[in-house]
C-alpha cells in the first residue's frame, strides 16, 4: 500500500533576499566569536526551514550551542552521542515512517538532518554514518568540517591536514611536522561504497547561496544524502576570528577544498580556479602551520596537486547528454 509521507519540496533560492525568512538558528549561543561551524549551522537551518529535526552528536555544535539547558535551535533537536548520530537519525526516520503508515502522524515529513563534526562523521561516528547511508533512510547527513576535535580543545582528527599543530600532534624535535598523517578524503569515502546514497556535495561557509541550494537539493531526495561543509575554526586553526570566511575562500582558491556535486555517478564542479594559488597562501595565515619548513609545505603542495589532478580528471569526463 502506497503511503503519502508528505515529503517536503524546498525550492532553490536565486539570491539572499529569497531566503530572508525567520532564523531557525537564533542568536544566543556560546560558540566562539567568528565560529565557522556556527555560521554553517545557521545557513543550514535557514535553508531547511521550520519543518526540521536536527540530530546533534556531541561536539562544538552541540556543547557550545546547547549551553546551558538552553539552545539556539528554533526547531526540534536531539542530542546524540558522538558515536551514533547516524543511528539516532535512522531511528527517528523509521519512527516517522511507521507512524505515517499507521495514520498516527499526518503532518509533513520533517527534514531529518544530522549535524556532525568531522570526528562524529569519519572517526568515532563512521560506523553509524555508513550504516545509515546503507539502509536508505531519508536523512541528510552533514559533516561540518573544522579539521579537528575542536570542542575538547583541538585534537587531531582524520580530517586534520598534514602538518597541523594540534594538542595531540604538537611539533617537536622528534616530530617537526607535527601531524604526520594525511587526512581521509570524506566525499570519496561515502561515494565509494553506498549504493543507496542519492547525492553528495561539498560547500563552505563562504558560499552561502551554494550551501543553501545544496541543502535544499539534498533534502528533496527520498533517500540518504551527504553534505561535506568546510567550517574554519579560528581557535583551532589559529587565525583572527574575522577571517573565518576568508579561510574558506582561500581553501577553494588553493585546491585544498573543491566545490562539487555528485549524483548518479556524475561529478559537477563549480568555482574551479583557472589557476590555483599556491598552498602557502592558505597556510601562511594559519598559526597551526607556522612551525612548518619548506620541505613540509612542499609535501602539502604535492598532496593538494594530487587532489587537483583528480578534480581535473573528473571534469574531463563528459557529462552524458540526457536523452
Amino acid at each position, binding site marked *: 500500500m502506497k503511503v503519502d509521507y508528505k515529503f517536503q519540496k524546498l525550492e532553490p533560492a536565486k539570491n539572499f533576499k529569497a531566503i530572508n525568512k525567520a532564523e531557525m538558528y537564533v542568536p544566543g*549561543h556560546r560558540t566562539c566569536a567568528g565560529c565557522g561551524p*556556527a555560521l554553517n549551522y545557521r545557513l543550514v537551518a535557514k535553508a531547511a526551514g521550520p519543518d526540521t529535526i536536527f540530530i546533534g552528536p556531541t561536539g562544538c555544535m552541540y556543547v557550545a550551542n546547547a549551553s546551558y539547558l538552553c*539552545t539556539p535551535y528554533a526547531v526540534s533537536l536531539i542530542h546524540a552521542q558522538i558515536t551514533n548520530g547516524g543511528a539516532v537519525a535512522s531511528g527517528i526516520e523509521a519512527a516517522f515512517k511507521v507512524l505515517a503508515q499507521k495514520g498516527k502522524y499526518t503532518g509533513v515529513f520533517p527534514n531529518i538532518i544530522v549535524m556532525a563534526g568531522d570526528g562524529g562523521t569519519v572517526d568515532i561516528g563512521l560506523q553509524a554514518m555508513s550504516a545509515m547511508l546503507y539502509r536508505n533512510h531519508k536523512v541528510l547527513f552533514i559533516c561540518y568540517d573544522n579539521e579537528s576535535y575542536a570542542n575538547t580543545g583541538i585534537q587531531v582528527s582524520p580530517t586534520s591536514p598534514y602538518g597541523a599543530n594540534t594538542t595531540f600532534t604538537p611539533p617537536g624535535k622528534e616530530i617537526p611536522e607535527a601531524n604526520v598523517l594525511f587526512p581521509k578524503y570524506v566525499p570519496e569515502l561515502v561515494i565509494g561504497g553506498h549504493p543507496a546514497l542519492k547525492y553528495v556535495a561539498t560547500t563552505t561557509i563562504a558560499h552561502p547561496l551554494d550551501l543553501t541550494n545544496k541543502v535544499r537539493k539534498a533534502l528533496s531526495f527520498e533517500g540518504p544524502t551527504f553534505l561535506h561543509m568546510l567550517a574554519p575554526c579560528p581557535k583551532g586553526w589559529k587565525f583572527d576570528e574575522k577571517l573565518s570566511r576568508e579561510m574558506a575562500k582561500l581553501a577553494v582558491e588553493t585546491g585544498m577544498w573543491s566545490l562539487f556535486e555528485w549524483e548518479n555517478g556524475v561529478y559537477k564542479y563549480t568555482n574551479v580556479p583557472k589557476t590555483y594559488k599556491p598552498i602557502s597562501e592558505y597556510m601562511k595565515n594559519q598559526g597551526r602551520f607556522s612551525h612548518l619548513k619548506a620541505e613540509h609545505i612542499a609535501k602539502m603542495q604535492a598532496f593538494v596537486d594530487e587532489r587537483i589532478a583528480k578534480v581535473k580528471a573528473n571534469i574531463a569526463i563528459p557529462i552524458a547528454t540526457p536523452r
Partner: protein
Amino acid sequence: MAKQKLPEFSTFNIPKDREVPFGAITPAPVNTQDLFITSNWRVVRPVIDQEKCTRCLTCYMACPDACWGYNEKADKLEWIAGFCKGCQICIHDCPVQCISAEPELNYPDGVVRLEKPF
C-alpha cells in the same frame, strides 16, 4: 511475628531554582535565546554606512550569530545589538567596506559599561 519498621527510601524536594526539566527536555526558542546573552563579549561593534551600503546582504549571510537583519520594507540592514560578539567578519567581508569597527566604550549604551553582568 510483629512487622518490623524498616528504613524509608529518600523523598525528594528539589528547590525550584535548581529544577531540571523532565528528561532534560527544554522548549525551543523562537526568535532569540535570551538565556544566553552574548553582547557583553564584544569590544568593538560594527557600524554601517547606509549610504555606501549596496544591500548585497553579504553581512547578513556572514554573521554566525544572525546579528544583521534585512528589513525588507525599509530596505535596510539593521544591526542586532543584543547578541553581537564583535567578531568583525561582517566588517572584513563587506565588498564595499561600508561597515567599520567602533570601540564599544564610545557608546553610551556600550555593554561593557553595565554594572551587572548578565
